[in-house]
């Protein structure tokens, strides 16, 4: 069974500091995709970053980067220089092409001014 686990229901970070959100997943597949989505209070889900499992290089999008450890089935999200607008619910997701997405239960991030 495919499962995604986010072990931190809530996290907080001081503005301008760095925070890491953890995500682990369970799969028997070798080729798949991983995503981090952000859901602010407006409830619109927004893609933050994505990673193809066959790529060893960690994905980076501006202040957002991932630490992808394929052997450990770990996919953590690092947010650098945290901003007030980063406050949201963050969901980790996993997918194999042609199949459904599997989402974690989310981590609520608070940014402290």
């Amino acid at each position, binding site marked *: 069974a495919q499962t995604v686990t986010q072990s931190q229901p809530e996290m907080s970070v001081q503005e301008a500091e760095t925070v890491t959100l953890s995500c682990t997943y369970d799969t028997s597949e070798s080729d798949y995709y991983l*995503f981090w989505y952000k859901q602010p209070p407006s409830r619109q889900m927004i893609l933050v970053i994505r990673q193809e499992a066959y790529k060893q290089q960690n994905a980076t999008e501006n202040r957002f980067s991932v630490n992808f450890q394929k052997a450990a089935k770990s996919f953590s999200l690092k947010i650098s220089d945290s901003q007030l607008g980063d406050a949201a619910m963050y969901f980790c997701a996993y997918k194999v092409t042609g199949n459904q997405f599997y989402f974690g239960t989310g981590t609520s991030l608070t940014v402290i001014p």
Partner: protein
Amino acid sequence: GAGVSQSPSNKVTEKGKDVELRCDPISGHTALYWYRQSLGQGLEFLIYFQGNSAPDKSGLPSDRFSAERTGGSVSTLTIQRTQQEDSAVYLCASSWGLAGGRLSTDTQYFGPGTRLTVL
């Protein structure tokens, strides 16, 4: 359209009534997903359409829930005889799916959701 649209944005109904929620995916996207998100919770998968293949209905919570996708585009999620526990935000998403090819990251793009309240 430019993005995934859903209608209505909010729906209030009485227990026992039927409701229909609409999703208009991004043009060309062959995959369409419905999720349910209860207050403060994660995403619960409901159903997945991929092109003309039979949909994956494994997430539908009961036979009161059904969905169809006409012409490979617009989708309607129907909830019959609504119950108070059906109150939630219903999110729709679309992606290129298999049309994106094997190397596609198949990113989902979400609509703004429909907030359903059953009184």
